[in-house]
């Protein structure tokens, strides 16, 4: 093992020793960090679940495409061809006569329609794209609206937009929350590391006098911060998964009442490591600030 690795290993174990030397303090810090990270993480998981709920459980999403009244059969055929090219999914052509017929069958409409001099309805297409994500629906709408002889394209659920806006607001809120808690996490680490530095003041002084470099003195505190953040992240993951496990039976029950088999799903694998990595980074940042300040005061 070369000297560099050995120095880092030694600092790492020294950090563990220092954390273990004050177990109650360490445990409390981990809990504070864990809780601070659980809240935004839970927010993200919640939003992620809502998003899949929006994408998969809203029933069939349709786009209605209305031709200009009096469009020629060729124009209709051209549009039909382009839809066929463009669309993975189902579509249906509703000729204006059929639409009128349907309207006639509607209660109370028959007399009104009979009084009309001619059929006022346009030919229409009803599209049911396979990919019903809000983004895709919106881009299809924009695209079809540009076809010549197409009078109007309408997404059959305006609530997709509202849902999207709600989701965006949710993400912004959780981002803000995460930022606030990240600052909190840095502050917590800052404080615990500051206390550690003060507790080690004598060792630091002696070590300096007998030839310790600045890096040697700082290193264990960095590892302390990193460890604390990473373990806090693990605690957050544990809290989060426990929370999901506790809530899920109720969620499943509720969903069943609406005829859905929806359950809360845990974050994906990448997101699993995120609290740990983020915690480690923020812990390192807090330690960095704290050690620099504390050592400057000690000189």
């Amino acid at each position: 093992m070369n000297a560099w690795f050995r120095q880092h290993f030694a600092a790492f174990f020294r950090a563990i020793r220092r954390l273990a030397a004050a177990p109650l303090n360490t445990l409390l810090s981990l809990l504070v960090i864990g809780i601070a990270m659980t809240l935004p993480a839970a927010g993200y998981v919640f939003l992620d679940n809502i998003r899949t709920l929006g994408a998969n459980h809203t029933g069939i999403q349709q786009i209605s495409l209305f031709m200009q009244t009096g469009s020629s059969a060729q124009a209709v055929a051209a549009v039909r061809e382009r839809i066929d090219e463009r669309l993975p999914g189902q579509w249906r052509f509703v000729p204006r006569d059929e639409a009128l017929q349907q309207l006639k069958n509607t209660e109370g409409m028959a007399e009104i329609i009979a009084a009309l001099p001619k059929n006022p309805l346009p030919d229409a297409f009803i599209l049911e794209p396979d990919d019903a994500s809000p983004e895709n629906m919106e881009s299809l709408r924009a695209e079809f609206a540009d076809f010549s002889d197409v009078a109007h394209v309408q997404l059959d659920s305006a609530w997709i937009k509202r849902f999207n806006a709600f989701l965006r607001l949710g993400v912004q809120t959780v981002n803000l929350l995460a930022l606030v808690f990240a600052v909190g996490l840095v502050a917590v680490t800052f404080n615990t590391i500051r206390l550690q530095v003060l507790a080690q003041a004598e060792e630091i002084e002696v070590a300096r006098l007998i030839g310790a470099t600045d890096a040697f003195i700082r290193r264990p505190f960095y590892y302390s911060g990193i460890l604390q953040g990473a373990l806090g992240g693990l605690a957050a993951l544990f809290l989060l998964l426990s929370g999901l496990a506790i809530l899920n039976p109720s969620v499943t029950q509720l969903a069943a009442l609406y005829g859905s088999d929806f359950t809360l799903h845990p974050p994906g694998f990448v997101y699993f490591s995120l609290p740990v990595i983020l915690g480690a980074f923020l812990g390192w940042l807090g330690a960095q600030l704290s050690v620099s300040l504390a050592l400057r005061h000690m000189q």
Partner: protein
Amino acid sequence: MIAGSHLVKRYLGGFEAIRDVSFEIAAGAMILIGGHSGAGKTTLLKLIGAIERPTSGSLIVGGQNLTALRNSALPFLRRNLGLVFQNQKLLFDRPALENVLLPLEIIGLPLREAQRRARAALDKVGLLAREKAYPIALSGGEQQRLAIARAVVNRPSVLLVDEPTANLDEGSARQVLDLFAAFNQVGVTVVIATHAPREIPGRDLRLMTLDHGQLLP
């Protein structure tokens, strides 16, 4: 070799603790720095040990000019010096062996090798049997010897010692001085600051006496 030339140390606040001091200490010599309390003995040791920087003049230790050295180079210079502080500065939160291990951790020695060397150093000062003892459980003389073990564990070529016998009874003082004599015997340059210089049997001592920051001829 240690050589000072027109050394001046002015502390923050303007007090001149060392005033135009020039001297030479040959490698392998044993030197006593005497003088009244406040004469500047500790300050001179701190200058040689690169703990304080001279205000002016030049100071060469082990071929390095301390006045010109960058701050970042100081730790590496200190590793070649053994320092025994007046109040020892032992770490009371860990046993004797761990106190002696600290300098070796600093240079990044593998633990096994470090422990072997720390035990050898404890053995030299007669404390091997007390390696697990915490400093608080050691007598004054034992604490002083523990501090010496920590100072020599890096095998420094120069040993700087501040008032090593100030708080010791006659027997312990003898023991400690004999230790320095033994290190000097094997070629270590030993510089001892003391307000009460005394003979050390079997050693050729040179006495440098400070008076209000100046070296008496």
